[in-house]
């Protein structure tokens, strides 16, 4: 540890929790692999216009249902469209849906759950009845209704899926908050003059982060798959535009004749979800100092 000159000491807030957690993350090997995979997938999708070998929506019936080969790396679909190109383009839709739904669910569900869990009483009752109302609908039906209301547009699909997922997250955050709220350090912090804002943000939120991160990885996978279902029903991505979920559901009809059509988008979704899950594990451990490991071992004469 370096000792800075007096008067210019780094603030412990930054030398502490956040930086230490960030330093911890790369030590989690699976999480780093996940991160690298996800960044690669995002990059490749973002660069789709430049690296896709074919036009993803160009129909060429003479080349339909071609198995993977030199000309078409991952084969072609029933309209003779290049599957690899569709995969790259489709990633743009699917990834943005997944990530934005996660962001939306977090932004809406976490504050709701924290406030509900910490303050309890009437506020809690009101909020949870609202959440219950949302949870009584089958999630897909609710999304369909919302998209029907807002219009079949990919932005609206993201919004609808976010609204569907937020209550689930809110309920989970609330129950974790209820448990943490009773911990002695919360009382101790209050005895030292901490107000509700400080307690919720720096004591409760940090302690319920682990289950939130795990839940968000699930939200991501659910969102990608739900987008597929919505597209299949005619909302969301409109044909002939590609999205992983859409292509996957379309490929079912050719499962016997052209399994590669199904494998490509499925594999992409699986890779994404796995990467995010691994990252979630790493993030969870990095956020919990008790799970930290050190690479140093004791040398001779060290204590």
């Amino acid at each position, binding site marked *: *540890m370096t000792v800075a000159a007096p008067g210019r000491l780094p603030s412990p807030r930054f030398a502490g*929790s956040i930086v230490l957690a960030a330093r911890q993350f790369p030590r989690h090997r699976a999480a780093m692999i996940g991160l690298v995979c996800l960044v690669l997938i995002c990059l490749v999708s973002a660069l789709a216009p430049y690296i896709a070998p074919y036009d993803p929506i160009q129909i060429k019936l003479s080349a339909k249902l071609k198995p993977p080969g030199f000309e078409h790396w991952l084969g072609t679909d029933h309209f003779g469209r290049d599957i690899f190109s569709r995969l790259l383009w489709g990633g743009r839709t699917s990834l943005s849906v997944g990530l934005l739904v996660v962001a939306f669910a977090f932004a809406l569900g976490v504050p709701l759950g924290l406030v509900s869990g910490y303050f309890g009483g009437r506020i809690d009752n009101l909020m949870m009845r609202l959440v219950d109302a949302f949870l009584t609908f089958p999630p897909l039906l609710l999304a369909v209704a919302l998209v029907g209301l807002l219009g079949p547009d990919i932005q609206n699909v993201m919004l609808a899926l976010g609204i569907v997922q937020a209550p689930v997250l809110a309920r989970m955050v609330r129950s974790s908050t209820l448990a943490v709220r009773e911990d002695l*350090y919360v009382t101790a912090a209050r005895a*030292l003059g*901490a107000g509700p804002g400080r307690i919720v943000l720096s004591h409760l939120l940090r302690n319920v982060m682990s289950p939130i991160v795990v839940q968000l990885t699930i939200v991501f996978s659910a969102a990608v798959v739900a987008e597929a279902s919505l597209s299949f029903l005619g909302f969301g991505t409109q044909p002939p535009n590609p999205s992983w979920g859409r292509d996957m559901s379309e490929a079912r009809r050719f499962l016997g004749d052209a399994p590669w059509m199904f494998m490509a988008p499925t594999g992409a979704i699986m890779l994404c979800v796995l990467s995010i899950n691994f990252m979630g594990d790493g993030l969870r451990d990095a956020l919990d100092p008790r799970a930290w490991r050190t690479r140093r071992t004791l040398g001779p004469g060290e204590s």
Partner: protein
Amino acid sequence: MPLLSIRNLQTRFATDRGIVRAVNGVSFDLEEGEILGLVGESGSGKSVTALSIMRLVPEPPGKVTADAMTLEGTDLLRLNEAEVRAFRGSRMAMIFQDPMRSLNPVLTIGRQITEVLRRHQKLDGAAARRRAIELLETVGIPMAEKRLAAYPHQFSGGMRQRVMIAIALSCNPRLLIADEATTALDVTIQAQIIDLVKRLTRDRGTSVIWISHDLGVVAGLCDRVNVMYAGNVVESGPIRELFHRPSHGYTLGLMGSTPRVDGGARRLTPIEGVPPNLIDPTPLCPFLPRCRVSADACRTQAPVRRDFGAGHWAACLADLAK
């Protein structure tokens, strides 16, 4: 004027079975720089008294009332939530029994100390950090600078309690309440912590309310003791007076059930029975069913307060001056 003055403090909790009178008419004064012991068995109302002073009793279901509860002339019960928050940590502070659980596991020690300094003393990052290092050194934590980046789980119980003391004293409160602060620690550490509290509060003139069920700890630390039973103070006096001449059946019972190093081989005599029901308090002495020294008068009339001089009194009818 005493630093803390409490008259007829009542803390009640609404439950399905009725109103529990956890604290039922406690009155006492705490002088500047005085260390007051609060002794009694579990459920006697010691902790609730402390939480009532700190205004940390959840309302509802709790309800705190008093004829007066003033700290340095300010009526604590008339402060609103924001004003009380400004008092907590700066004018009055509290440390808790279990140091393993009273620090946030996911925040660094440094962050938890500086948070309080920034809030109450409005120090900036660097100043708060310097002060935190000083504080950790004061409570005897070596390599304080390095420890700022450590997390609670890397500390032992004794060290965590030292950190808690450092945090509690960081803004020089006038009143420190320690609720069973050494109960979870082993005896050698206990002695160190007690010495530390003694030294730091004497230096700063801080008044202390030391809650314990351990008479030995109280005898070694406090200037005066309040013995609590069934939500009320039943005997109070300067430490020597009270130990030489326990004047309440309950105090006598407590002493009989405490092992002594210098007392030779002697069987401990437990207090038989269970603490009384706090929902329907009896007009008679609440300790009567368990008392070994009760007089006939105890069965017919309410206990009266008897003074023995030098601030020593007891609410007991039995004649113990033998």
